[in-house]
């Protein structure tokens, strides 16, 4: 087989006669596939397929899933509305409105804390930037689905109650 227009030697290695008549190689290939088929018929339980809605894959502890906001001991958000996460977010999908906290030591708390999950790229930078470990992506949730776009915009309440314990 020659490839016009290509410099000599740039094409794949020459096919041998046995390969070029196809027949034997086709028969060999058919043998391979029927081997798989027969094996799988008698070993259905060994199949690597995950029966998804019933069985779910557990990702590693470091997997970045949907966000959650951490709570203080009294249940209020740990976040101090410093805007670090909103600033670092490459997708610009965190929106925080700060308000004054009655405790002067804490100074501020988020009045609203909204994340647009459709824009988020799950990079985890918000988690890294946060000075008080208030936002984490450790829920391990990866099934993020809804039937309208505005349901992907989640608020403070949702995030505070998003799975009590993380994967670590």
């Amino acid at each position, binding site marked *: 087989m020659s490839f016009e227009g290509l410099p000599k030697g740039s094409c794949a290695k020459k096919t041998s006669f046995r390969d070029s008549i196809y*027949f034997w190689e086709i028969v060999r290939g*058919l043998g*391979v*596939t029927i081997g*798989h*088929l027969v094996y799988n018929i008698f070993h259905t339980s060994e*199949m690597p397929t995950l029966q998804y809605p*019933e069985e779910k894959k557990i990702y590693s502890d470091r997997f970045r899933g949907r966000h959650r906001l951490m709570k203080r001991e009294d249940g209020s958000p740990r976040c101090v509305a410093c805007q670090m996460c909103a600033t670092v977010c490459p997708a610009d999908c965190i929106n925080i409105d700060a308000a004054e906290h009655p405790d002067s030591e804490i100074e501020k708390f988020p009045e609203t804390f909204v994340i647009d999950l459709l824009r988020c790229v799950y990079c985890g930078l918000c988690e890294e930037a946060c000075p008080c470990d208030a936002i984490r992506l450790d829920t391990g949730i990866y099934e993020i689905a809804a039937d309208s776009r505005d349901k992907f915009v989640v608020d403070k309440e949702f995030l505070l109650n998003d799975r009590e314990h993380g994967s670590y």
Partner: protein
Amino acid sequence: MMLFLDTLSKIGFMFVLIMGMVVVLIWMERKGAAFIQDRTGPNRASIAGIRLAGLVHPVADVFKLLFKEDIQPANRHRALYNIAPWLVMAVALSTYAVIPFGDYISIAGRKVSLVAADLNVGLLYILAVASLGTYGVIMAGWASNNKFTFLGGVRATAQMISYEINMGLALIGLVLVFSSQATPEHLREFLGADFLSGLRLTHLVAGQGDLLWGFLPKWGVVVQPLGFLLFITAVFAETNRNPFDLPEGESEIVAGYHLEYSSMKFALFFMAEYAHMVIGAALVATFYFGGYQVPWLPRPVLEAHAGSLLTIKLIGVVIISMIFSLLFFRRAQREKGKFGDARDREPGLGGALWLIVALGALGGLVLKPWGIGADGASLFASLIQVGAFVVKLVFFAWLFIWVRWTLPRFRYDQLMALGWKVMLPLGLANLVVTAVVLAMV
């Protein structure tokens, strides 16, 4: 009037066979592909929780496609666009008219041939009608007014022209071999001819019931092995199946000729593809694997030993279905409560079904099958022959699927090189050698 009713029921049988095969093939394609690729395949659609190992999916597909919106491109050629899928389907179905699925069946003393239309130019009819299907593809490609569908149509044309020749050449060798052969004794009266004509499919198949040198079935594949390889390659190309499915090459031209079709019109193309596969399988079985012939057991032998054969068969069915039933019940035992819903009942149900088959066969044994009369023996032989044809049909249809999930698609230049530079010379050489050998013996 009788003739009309006979023909109508034969057409009905063929139609049910093909449409049933289409459903089974779609299932086989999905399940087979999945198992070859170490997946489980479709296993979700269910009727009352019973999934029949995925057999419900084709049914669900039909309902889905029936209720889908039929979206048509604005600048289509209205008439051709609408005719094309019907043409493809109609042509696919009409090829079966000349394919014999048994020699004859005696009903109330009448011998009815088991072929819808016994044309004396059946082989030419097949070649002519089969290539008409490509018109549907070209029409679909052109009328959609889309460059990808157009390219698909053009590819189909070029491919059809190249491989039609090889198909014809391979078949001429076969016709030479089976022409002017003496008609088998038991069919002489029925076929009304002393010598066979290679162009008539009933004759072609009747000739394949003999033995070659006393021990080999005189099947087309035995007398024309090279012709068989050429023919089956050409059939793959004619049916647009992988490795020659360039008219719908997804990676280059999206979906090829049926890109602009949706809803039931798409379903027609989809079903026609499988109907074409069934034709392909039927042609390979008829031409090269003896059609309805059971190897080493021609009709006289079948009739003479009908009693004992039937008994053996029933015992075999009992044993095999008992084994299946046991396997299913063991599985039901092992996987008890695996899903926690209706699906848990499936293995038990499968076991029960096989048990019913076993009991049915056992009931047949009680009726003393070893003593069936001459009428029963004749009927038994006819049914066994139809069964043999269906088994061959299913096997070759499976071969199509098997090959599809084994081989990658050819590149277009490779396709053309194979057709014109390899297969054409080989076909001519095969023809010459066959003619010379026939002239010498």
